[in-house]
């Protein structure tokens, strides 16, 4: 289709992007449209304010963290490539696709999905979820329902559960271990990105 191709052509490095993310052309186009819609001023990149304009995201208790995940440290903008790569975390794992040898780990692999979740907690990027970091997330999610003390005890116990080396923090390895039995592929995938 002519229009499809012309849209695709406008995106730089589209081949590489598709290769890396595993998205089909249709997905790329849909995401590109969305990207343009979010980028109201047409700068070619998105700012945190653009995300903030999404009404539903504002209701999300950990919305600001999720927005933050789009921006690599020190950067104030996100371009289309990064945007797509972040969303590619949530592409369902396709079993049919033959595994190529030597190919890099796909973005939507289990550990990458987990890493995305992990960095939402780990705001200071020290590779560990500290008690305070956990507490912040819990506070955001449980909100008014529980008292601060209860929150603290939940946080303590959560750390206790996962903390294998007893340093009162959850490392990524411990994080992964604690979620070993949970089907991340199903929980961290969005259907329409298939």
């Amino acid at each position: 289709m002519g229009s499809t191709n012309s849209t695709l052509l406008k995106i730089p490095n589209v081949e590489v992007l598709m290769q890396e993310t595993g998205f089909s052309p249709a997905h790329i186009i849909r995401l590109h449209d969305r990207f343009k819609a979010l980028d109201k001023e047409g700068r070619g990149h998105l700012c945190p304010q653009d995300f903030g304009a999404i009404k539903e995201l504002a209701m999300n208790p950990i919305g600001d963290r999720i927005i933050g995940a789009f921006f690599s440290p020190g950067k104030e903008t996100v371009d289309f490539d990064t945007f797509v790569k972040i969303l590619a975390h949530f592409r369902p794992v396709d079993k049919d696709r033959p595994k190529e040898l030597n190919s890099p780990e796909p973005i939507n692999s289990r550990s990458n999905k987990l890493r995305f979740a992990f960095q939402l907690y780990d705001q200071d990027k020290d590779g560990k979820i500290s008690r305070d970091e956990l507490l912040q997330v819990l506070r955001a999610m449980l909100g008014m329902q529980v008292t601060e003390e209860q929150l603290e005890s939940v946080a303590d116990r959560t750390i206790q559960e996962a903390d294998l080396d007893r340093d009162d923090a959850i490392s990524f390895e411990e994080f992964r271990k604690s979620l070993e039995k949970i089907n991340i592929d199903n929980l961290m995938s969005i259907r329409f990105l298939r």
Partner: protein
Amino acid sequence: MAFLQQFALLLALLIVLSSSCAGVGLNYSSKSSVTTNTTTSTNDSTDGHAASTITTLPIVIWKWHHVETPYLVALWILTCWLCKLVAQLNHSFTSVIPESGLLIMMGFILGGIVWGADKAQTFKLIPVNFFYYLLPQIVLDASYCMPNKLFFSNLGAILVHAVIGTCWNAGTVGVAMWGCYEGDAMGNLNIGLLQFLLYGALLSAVDPVAVIAVFEEVHVNEVLYILVFGESLLNDGVTVVLYNVFDAFVSLGGPKINAEEIIKGIVSFFVVSFGGSFLGVVFAILISMLTRITYKVQIIEAGFIIVLGYLSYLTAEMLSLSAILSITFCGVCCQKYITANMDEKSVLTLRYVLKVMANGSETMIFVFLGVSAIDVDIWVWNTGFILLTILFIVVFRIMGVFFLNWLLNQTRLIPIDLTDQLVMGYGGLRGAVAYGLAASLDEKKIPEKNLMLGTTLIVVYFTVILQGITMKPLVQWLKVKKATHSDLTLNGKMNNRVFEHILTAMEDICGRMGDNWWTRHWKYFEDKYICWLLMKKDAREQQDPIFGAFHKLNLEDAKQYVTEGESKGALAFIRNYDNASIDFKKKLALEYADIMGDMSEYDFDIDNVPVTSVMKNPIPSVSLDIHELDRRSMHDDLSAHHVLDHHLYKSRRDNHAAYSRSNYKTSENPDETQEIFQRTMRSRLDSFKSAKMGVHPSKKLSKRPKKDSTYKPNGKPADPHRTHPFGDEDFEFTADSTSSSEFAGHFPMRNTNAPDAGVDNPAFIPEMDMPPPMLNPPWQTETANNTAVAPSQRAQGRLPWTPTNLRRLAPLRLSARSTDTFAMADASVDDEAPEEKPGTNHTRL
């Protein structure tokens, strides 16, 4: 329970066909109930009653006819249940042949006995009894125990299979049979196309019992489980609707059927199905609203659900809507709200009563499916007809399943894989619904009724026994994905929530309304309006699943702590320094015990499983294995009680009235478990407090200033009627200070143990748990030592295991600013202690 009584009486209709041979039947059922195969008929005195004129005052008279019907019913129930017992005796047997198959075979034997005596089958399953008295509770139980979240997230697939799949099965089997009949494959029969379609419709009912039993045994993955379970449940309803539509067509007669009638038929199909479902939802709302206030009559609370559920069935039947769908949706929808509204005990009661009724009638159905076969009258053999029927139902079922799954897989996030599809197709066992429908065919309209009935029976036997036997090997051979058992962890719960938030956020960013969008908006709507309407206020306030998980884990730890300690002899394991420090998790539970107390409102978390039933449940949110779960949790409950009862406070039991007619809350059980738990926990906590500096310089513990120098080990449990979760109202006391000081003198002082604290194990206080001079624990020996722990009388009047009270166990707080409550808790001990004194005199033996 009123309903049970009613149920038993109504069941009377089940078996009795003629009164003339009742005596013989009675004799046989009682004989066979001990499962001997004796065929002697030794009833000579059965009809020895003569109620006419009497010449002298009889001392006893034989009144068989007065009790005949209920007596027979009860005997048959007993017989069937004993059959189940026999079937379960040898596990190696049931692991090969599914229980339902075994029951049918036993039915053959029983039927043979009756036949041998009566020369006719006097007992068989009549459709009326089946549909009104046996089926409803099975459906209610299945729907009430349905894993809700799983069900609704797969509702689309389930509906496609249940509605389209059933129609496909009915249509294709009917048409194919008709085609073969026209092709002269089964001789000369008096059946037209419409009758064949009717026949196809009744054969499309898939019976869940046998498949589910196998699935539970091998723990297939939950998607496969819910698809088959949900499908077979809804499919029964759809089948009945379809059957009625075709039945109407048959009565209308071929020539009168035109386009208009067909459209009417289709419309009525949808009206009946959706009308029935809607009625079920209405009843679910009614039930939920009713349970908001039933706490006043807690003892019959559970009965309301059963009666109203049954009424939803009957009402739908009265309005000629789909009764099965009605009761299904009633159970599924009200589940969450009534679990939150009702008392924990009522929830458990309801679950067990439903299980008893459902399992009971399931057993009866299968036995009677066997019994009904032993009857010459119904058998019209037509090899072609029978073989073709079996061939078609298997083939078309598998074709239908594959086609629909292919369709569904186009959009599913996780496709249903091939092995699952095969198992789904093969799992299409036919059961009692098919038989019930076949038996209710009208012989005037369907001249070949007996052929159809007989064939249906053969189909049932073929599928239940043969397919049932081969099901398990097939599942194992195909290596069907098993369910992953994950333990309940806070990390899991919390991250699930995080993942949900992430997914919704991503959907928002992508600008699509995906599944999570719907989920979230439904949740929002539910929280805001539905819960407001259907839930009690206090049940509504706290239901966060993360917190529920936390609470459950704590309870579990605490319970384990006590059990373990007692099994090792007076909590010996904490005497060991190394153990104590390693076992930090357990101590943590202690530290949280106070918070735990504040959480009595969270007993009903989002999973809607009462805490006691999930204590040891390895599958947190969904239990695939319903029966096993119940058995296990029941066992856990029992074992815990057993342990506690056994070791402690034995003698006190005799001291109070064990029975009260209307209020089991106050009299059912003395709070031995509760109190022992409290006592041990408290003493340990006290010792923790005193010794925290010496042994465990855990940062949280050391932060707190040393508060009190004197601790009393046995605080009186909190007033049962105080339920304020956070408030300090709990800590108002009616103590007289004089006796307080006096009492304190009798008490083992904390500092007597102080020297030990730093050295051996501070956490253990010998005088608390087992005073050294006494070999027996104080509560078992009769001593004048009033300082030993003795329960107050008030303690006996409370529910065991009410988590509210656990708060009192652990005055420890984590944060620094909570020391107030900490102090209060200690104060409470001091102040309340005197009150116990009079109590000690009475309650000891």
